[in-house]
């Protein structure tokens, strides 16, 4: 499954919808999905410069939501701070440290609605969250008023499915980031 498969399915399920609006609602959905689940994670590679402690690491067209960890082969980066797109290292790199890149694991959200929709998410994530993105976009589109594809009932149906997908994605991310944390486990409902 890819962005193309998602777009084509949405075109078929939403007769009369124009591509621009489908993409805009998909973008809005990705914003909600990524901010809620932190499911879009990447490891960024940064080339260090001698003596420089501050690095702009935010990829173009993205916003960093969380920094999980930083790692470097020789430089001690424990206690690095992240603020407003800038990673601040606790120690200045020496010439020996420049041989290796700095790795930073982050969660991201796309911010450029005008960019090619295929660039909003990496292809594997479009594949992994295909059903979630499909249900979420259908819900948003069908909840609009006075459109050929408006359907309050189906908007609720797909919205419910989307929230379930999102809960699973969130649990999976927690489970992935904290081994042994039991991301898929929940307290029984009556104890919450």
């Amino acid at each position, binding site marked *: 499954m890819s962005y193309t498969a998602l777009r084509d399915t949405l075109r078929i399920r939403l007769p*009369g919808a*124009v591509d621009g*609006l489908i993409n*805009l609602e998909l973008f809005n959905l990705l914003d909600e999905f990524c901010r809620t689940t932190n499911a879009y994670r990447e490891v960024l590679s940064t080339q260090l410069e001698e003596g420089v402690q501050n690095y702009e690491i935010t990829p173009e067209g993205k916003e960093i939501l969380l920094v999980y960890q930083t790692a470097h082969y020789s430089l001690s980066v424990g206690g690095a701070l992240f603020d407003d797109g800038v990673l601040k290292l606790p120690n200045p790199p020496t010439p020996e440290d420049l041989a290796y890149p700095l790795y930073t694991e982050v969660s991201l959200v796309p911010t450029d609605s005008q960019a090619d929709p295929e660039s909003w998410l990496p292809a594997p994530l479009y594949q992994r969250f295909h059903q979630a993105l499909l249900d979420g976009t259908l819900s948003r589109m069908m909840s609009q008023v006075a459109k*050929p594809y408006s359907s309050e009932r189906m908007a609720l149906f797909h919205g419910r499915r989307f929230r379930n997908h999102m809960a699973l994605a969130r649990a999976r991310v927690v489970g992935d980031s904290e081994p042994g944390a039991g991301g898929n486990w929940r307290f029984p409902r009556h104890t919450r």
Partner: protein
Amino acid sequence: MLDTAASYITEARRLLQDEVEPYRYPDADMLAALNQSAFEARRLRPELFLGRFDALPQVTAPEDPFLVDPMYRSAILYYVVGRMELRDSEDTKDGRASVLLNKFVAQLLTIQS
């Protein structure tokens, strides 16, 4: 193709049976109707003009482009023809104008039209 004002005018004249000069409906009136259709479509389906809300397609000459999503070009055409039919002259029928203008709205808002 229905992508320029001229193509809309040609098609509208065919439906209006106004293909022989001198025309009953001048080009200027057709262009005005086409421009008005953009405002009406903007009101009903703003996403047709996504990214150009402040610069809706407006034409001043037949060669000017008038671009909307291909799915909705026939709706625009029905609006132009319907608006021409609204004119108070002996060869127009109010019923036909009403049908065409309603068809424009129905095509924008519903599937079964």
